[in-house]
C-alpha cells in the first residue's frame, strides 16, 4: 500500500491543526502503528510551531507538507518560503542533562525530531527551504 498527500498551510492563520488531522487520516488509511502516527504528528507540530513563531524574521508566508507513506517508510517533506535556515545545522543543541533548577525552558523541538526520525535532510532550492524527514514503518 502507499499514499501521498499534500497540505498547504498559511502561516498567518491558525491552520496547524489541519496537519494533525491529515496525519491521523493517513495513519488510518495506511494502517500505521499508533506510535508512528504520534511521532509524525509531533515532528510536524514542532516544525510548524517554529515556522509560525519565526515567520516575521524569516519572512515566510506558508508551509507545504507532503506525506508519502510507503510499505517500508514514511517520508515527510516540508517546504517553506522563508529566508534560508538549516535546522540540521543552524539550531543550537538542546540541554537535556542539567539539573532541574538550571534546565532551560524550550529548545526541545528539533532535538525530538532528530531523535525520533531515522533521517533529517535539509536543502535550499529555488528560494525555498526543504526539510525531508524519513521514518521507518517498523522500529
Amino acid at each position, binding site marked *: 500500500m502507499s499514499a501521498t498527500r499534500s497540505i498547504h498551510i498559511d502561516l498567518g492563520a491558525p491552520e496547524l491543526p489541519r496537519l494533525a488531522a491529515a496525519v491521523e487520516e493517513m495513519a488510518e488509511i495506511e494502517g500505521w502503528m499508533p506510535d508512528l502516527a*504520534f511521532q509524525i504528528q509531533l515532528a510536524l507540530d*514542532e516544525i510548524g510551531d517554529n515556522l509560525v513563531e519565526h515567520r516575521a524574521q524569516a519572512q515566510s508566508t506558508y508551509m507545504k507538507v507532503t506525506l508519502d507513506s510507503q510499505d517500508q517508510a514514511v517520508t515527510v517533506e516540508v517546504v517553506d518560503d522563508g529566508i534560508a535556515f538549516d535546522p540540521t545545522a543552524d539550531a543550537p543543541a538542546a540541554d*537535556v*542533562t542539567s539539573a532541574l533548577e538550571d*534546565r532551560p525552558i524550550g529548545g526541545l523541538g528539533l532535538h525530538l525530531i532528530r531523535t525520533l526520525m531515522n533521517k533529517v535532510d535539509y536543502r535550499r532550492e529555488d528560494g525555498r527551504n526543504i526539510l525531508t524527514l524519513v521514518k521507518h514503518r517498523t522500529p
Partner: protein
Amino acid sequence: MNVNTETSGNSLVIALDGRVDSSNAAEFNTALENATADSDLGVVLDCENLQYISSAGLRVILTTAKSLQSSQRKFVICTLSNPIQDIFVISGFDQIINIQGSRAEALATMEA
C-alpha cells in the same frame, strides 16, 4: 484538554486528559497554576488519559516542576503511554522529574 484535580491523602492529584500542543499550552499552564495554587501539598500529575503532548506542553511541565521545586513541594508524573514516555526520556525529563508507572506507585512515593 481537561484537567481534573482531587486531593488524595497528602497529595494533589491532577488528572490530565486529551491533547496538549501549542494551541492550548497557555491554557494548560493556567490550569496547572490554578490547580496548585492555595495549597502546599505535593503534586501527582496523572497522564493516563493524555493522548498527545508536543514540546509546547513539555515547556509547561518543566515550568511547573521548577516552580514546585522552588517551593519545596514534591512533583511526580505517572502513567505515561509509551510514545509519551519516549519523549520524556529523549528530553531528559526522566532525570529531573520523578516518573512512576501508576497512580498507586506515585502516591506511595509521596508518603515517603
